[in-house]
């Protein structure tokens, strides 16, 4: 460990970490929006299940580096390429968790909601979704931690946040940068995970014992 390098590059490390967070947040955010739509389709009509899980499963199985390599000739060395790849990997995880969450709502509760006069939209927004929060948060945790790891690989196309820092360290045999990149990434993953757990708890006050 070269401590001098660390102290003289705090700014660069912080920039890389910020890039990393932005790349992750964009991917999980866009991935969540798409997955949410997919999940609603599946929840509405089971026939959507096979095609959607087929496509998202295929995307999930294709190795990240291969997907980046396939996209680069088309969309170039760009943020767009990185995000298409990153979003692809969140879809399977998030869709499955959201559907599982919506499916897990007990029938009696849904029937009670219908009896109280909720229409389809109101039931979804005010009954089904709140009850699905624990599973949705579980999905977001897996997707976020996975994405934080995958962002690294986008260093190959000039993005990558901390992955870029590590790749440069690797190329110039500056191992301190490699270790710092790895440690900060794990730190980010832990902080993100704890943050999501806390957010999930705050969003579901009824699950806490009184």
């Amino acid at each position, binding site marked *: 460990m070269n401590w001098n390098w660390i102290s003289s590059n705090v700014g660069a490390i912080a920039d890389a970490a910020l890039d990393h967070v932005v790349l992750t947040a964009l991917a999980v955010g866009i991935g969540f929006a798409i997955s949410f739509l997919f999940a609603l389709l599946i929840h509405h009509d*089971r026939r959507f*299940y096979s095609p959607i*899980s087929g496509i998202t499963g*295929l995307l*999930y*199985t*294709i*190795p*990240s*580096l*291969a*997907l980046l*390599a*396939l996209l*680069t*000739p*088309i969309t170039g060395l760009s943020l767009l390429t990185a995000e298409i790849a990153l979003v692809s*990997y969140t879809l*399977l*995880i998030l*869709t*499955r*968790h959201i*559907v*599982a969450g919506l*499916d897990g709502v007990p029938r009696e509760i849904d029937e009670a909601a219908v009896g109280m006069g909720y229409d389809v939209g109101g039931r979804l927004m005010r009954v089904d979704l709140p009850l699905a929060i624990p*599973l949705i948060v*579980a*999905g977001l945790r*897996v997707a976020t*931690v*996975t994405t*934080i*790891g*995958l962002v*690294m*690989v986008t*260093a*190959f*196309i000039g993005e990558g946040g901390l*992955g870029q820092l*590590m*790749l440069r*360290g*690797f190329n110039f045999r500056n*191992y301190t940068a*490699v*270790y710092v*990149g*790895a440690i900060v*990434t*794990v730190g980010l*993953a*832990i902080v993100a*995970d704890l943050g999501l757990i806390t957010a999930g708890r705050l969003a579901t006050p009824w699950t806490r014992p009184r």
Partner: protein
Amino acid sequence: MELFGEAFAWFTDPANWSGVTGIPNRMFEHVWLSALTIAVGTLVALPIGLAIGHTRRGAFLAVSIANVGRALPSYSLLLIFFTFLGIGFASAFPALLVLTIPPILTSTYVGVTEVDRDMVEAGRGMGMTEVELLRRVEVPMALPVIIAGVRIAAVQVVATATLAALVGGGALGRFIVDGFGLQRHDQLVGGAILVALLALATERSFTLLERRVISPGVRGVVDKEPAATPRPVLEMGA
């Protein structure tokens, strides 16, 4: 699409099919590295998972290992191992091995734990020893979950073995990493297609294996579940 024309030309060029840098050898390296890692990873993680699942002791350890494993990205692992072990398969192998252990360990432990306790008690009542219980009751019942864990690990290893090229390993990643370096789109896309096909083939062969080795009785139980209820994803992918 000009691009796929280029990739097609790359695939049909005989020069890409011979020698150390040819497609067959790179494919062989990729499969060999992945298979070795999965075999060793299973040998290490399976017994530990079975022991934890059967005795119900050390579950906290298993969960912790799985979580740490998820937070440590394969890319970081490769580069870190490189700083200790240098260029080539020597650093790729341990990095990949670390990846295989969490999914296999957790799925084995979860699979065995989920086996109906009444079945185990019935076996015990029939005079089975602990080892027999594990071998003839718990493992067959838990097999779908265990194989799913190995499948997740295998797909992940095939994906990550691509990154081994970064630390100077061979394998199919060579085409991609060099394709990026040389700005050669034909070999970039060609390599990507090969890796993607290999990952899909790996996934497919484990699905077929599942059908073959899982006891029909257990499969029957599995099939009775509504097919469209998706399982939450346990582990990360590539």
